[in-house]
């Protein structure tokens, strides 16, 4: 095959851009991004924090759940510019700096609460967020199912995730 000339390639869209400044996992970051960039894309592709996954981009599956000022939120339904000034926490911030798993992560491992691992970061962020709230946890069967009711998992059939929530509560002295 003869080598062809390198084609001229467009290098940008004509999207309007905007400066966003926010805190991500405790660090201040600012970037100039497209006004329509999703927070999930901002985290994943601007910051390289690819632990936040995208499963549906319409707010149903919960894979993209991050903590927005401490509350679980859908990063696929949030524009990066909407997160301006907020503090975002992602799955990358959950384990200790030396890699030691957070009790919620540890519980998932012990209880086989994950298979492919795609929904897992969203599950973990949702659970961590709920565990950090001050009100008491409802650890009944129905209570845990309710806690998980914003996150889809296609692999596990949930029972081991339910067990993991209970185990995490035990590890964290919340039961």
């Amino acid at each position, binding site marked *: 095959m003869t080598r062809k000339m390198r084609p001229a390639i467009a290098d940008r869209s004509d999207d309007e851009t905007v400066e966003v400044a926010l805190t991500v996992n405790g660090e201040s970051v600012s970037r100039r991004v497209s006004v329509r960039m999703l927070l999930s894309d901002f985290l*994943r592709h601007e910051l390289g924090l690819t632990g936040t996954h995208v499963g549906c981009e*319409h707010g149903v599956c919960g894979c993209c759940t991050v903590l927005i000022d401490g509350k679980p939120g859908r990063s696929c339904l949030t524009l990066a510019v909407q997160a301006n000034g907020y503090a975002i926490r992602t799955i990358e911030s959950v384990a200790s700096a030396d890699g030691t798993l957070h009790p919620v992560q540890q519980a998932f*491992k012990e209880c086989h609460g994950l298979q*492919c691992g795609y929904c897992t970061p969203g599950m973990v962020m949702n659970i961590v967020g709920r565990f950090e709230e001050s009100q008491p946890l409802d650890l009944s069967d129905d209570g845990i199912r309710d806690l998980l009711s914003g996150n889809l998992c*296609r*692999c596990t059939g949930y029972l081991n*995730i*339910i067990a993991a929530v209970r185990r995490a509560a035990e590890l964290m002295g919340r039961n």
Partner: protein
Amino acid sequence: MSTRTFGARIERNVDPKLLRGEGVFVDDIPLPQALHAAFLRSSHARARISRIDVAAARRHPGVVEIYTCDDIGALDVEMPLLIPHPCMTNPQTQRPLARGDVYYVGQTIAMVVAVDRYTAEDAAALIEIDYEPLPVELDLAQALRDGAPLVHANVPNNLAAHFVQTSGTPDEAFAAAEHVTAITVQVDRSTAAPMECRAVAARFDAISGELTVWDGTQAPISVRGGLASVFELDEDKVRVIAPDVGGGFGQKVLLFYPDELLVPMAAMQLGRPVKYIEDRRENFIGSSQERTQIHRIELAALKTGEVIGLRDVFLHDTGAFIPYGIAVAQVASTSIAGPYRIPNIFVEFKAVYTPTVQVTPYRGCGRPQACFAIERAMDQLADELGLDRFEIRRRNLISESQFPYEREGLLFADGLKVTLDSGQYLKALGMAATELGAADFAALQAKALSEGRYIGLGLACYVEGTGLGPYEGGHVKIHPITGKVYVNTGLSTQGQGHDTVFAQIVADQLGVSPSDVIVVEGDTKAFDWGVATFASRAAVVSGNAIHKTAITVRNKVLQAAANMLDVDIADIELRDSAAWVKGSNRFVPLAAIATASNPLRYAFNKAAQAATQFAPASKHDGPPLAEGEAPGLEATDYYSPSMSTWAYGVHAAIVEVDPGLCTVKIRKYVCIHDCGNMINPMIVEGQVMGGIAQGIGGALYEHLDYQADGNLANASLADFLVPYATEIPDVSILHLETPSPLNPLGVKGVGEAGCIAVGAVIASGVEDALRPLGAAKFRQLPLSPSMIASALEQAGH
């Protein structure tokens, strides 16, 4: 020997990475300067394209290239038919980009490559298409009639395939029958809906001439072979990597999806990495689906309830194309007699083209439909003969002394005669009855009824032919510095825990901890002989290949250690990552043995220094590497199954139906399951439970709602109802372990097992619950609230 890890509930090696968000899925791979692809897809089920105008799209800022069928050169051909079969009439496969005609809503017409996905989608919307819509027929029976609108002009009556299989003498059986039961059942269209949609990224290195493709596929080696052949590249110059993959369930094993060819093509043409990340809507309208079948099943029985003959005639919807051949229908037709003796079988199917997304195997692959047909028919027969539903099954199950049980004349998907290899079917049925509390159920039901509550008992048995060939391989190598063991096989994983179960197999042979066994798969540069992950075959086929290989490496270790410690091989035992002289504290670490087995003259690490304290690993004269000897502790071997292994199980449930709301609540669910020897029961249970949840989705909620015009009305997770935790009840899973006599590990596959029986169980239970209200029978899945409402309405409620 260390404690045996085969059979132990060992936590997974892969978990910490995935839990920390350090998994690497295709879209996570940083590819500097990557361009992004989006597709323009057909908005008509069946139409002729009279004009495509890409001018406005091409002018859109940020667009790099737009491809239609006229721009893709040699790729503008029909894609391969993966599994040919003579019963198909003029089998149709899809072109990467539509030429002239479109055949389903969602078919790819043009690909836009742009600086980002947002821009690519904008430009795709700017492409102007003139369609001349053509009439469509989605009803299977109607589509077969003369004069029905054709999906493909050159396939009369939309008949994609027609196949008959016979075992024994079914006509004689029906002539001899004392009672015949006949019912019609239907299962509707569904989809795998893995949490990660499909994804492909490609980079072409003009210097090395190497094409690297990251593909969330279940079949990286096959994709590699296909790409090399399509692009006329040396196989060595094409590397396909299936990194972490977010679920597959069969959907990620089609060769090829259009993007799998077009993305590498664009990367080569444009000299830049190109990425296509399927979105959820595209997954619904572009990626394979399954399930629609309509069965007319008849059972020829004696008054005792013994079934002596079965006739099943069914229609199978193959969608607009049939790239996978008749696999789904063939598996359904060979699973139709389930775990029952039924010696005389006639099974016939017609596969029908409809202008919808193509049908290829989705977890279960025809088995849930076959199970639904036979189990609903068994229930009906029990009703008609006045027998208990457990009892009629007891009278028909194959007993232990009858294995191997052959069904002469029925050829399974591996092309071999159906031969059920082993099992304890009757014991499993008994366990299900006990665990569910079947003996007390009548009283429970009567009590509930007196309180105005409607509970019912559901029951179903299933079999699953697993572990299809032709073969897989294993490579095992002990690292000379760390003593850790590296294992490769030709599969890819979508969450099944291969890295842990294969580690357990190897750990037992080499006396190491499973956490010191590093399994690398899904990369054609790591191992490139093999088939793919599908058909519940990984543990059976790769597992046994790795087992054989590990034994070879073990023997090398024993020999080298015996030489180094100057003792007899029989005096060596392997444990704690070392070879020990039995009954002494003399040992040599595996790392040192691996180092000493490599006749290299440098001692640049501790393992090498340690190795020098021992006698040579190889006792021979002449050059350092003896003739026929290989350096290191390493081996490669393969396993090719003689035939499929058949797993089975019994599911039973107690359900409660609210006749006001027409909702179904599962009060108790029991699964008795046998997949032979279990490598890791925790992982087996995870597979089974995941399957059950998927089965519950298929039984009650998940239904692709195609409109009469061929448009899919619920192409989103908001409308296609995958169960959340709130829909999944507690489930009690109990195991039997009847080893398969067919392979050294005695294992059978488990990946698909859980989903097979659920629909039959739920329908059986709902029917039982509503019997006091005189409601009609439930013979269609998913069993929706409107079906319950209509059954109650017909009964005058």
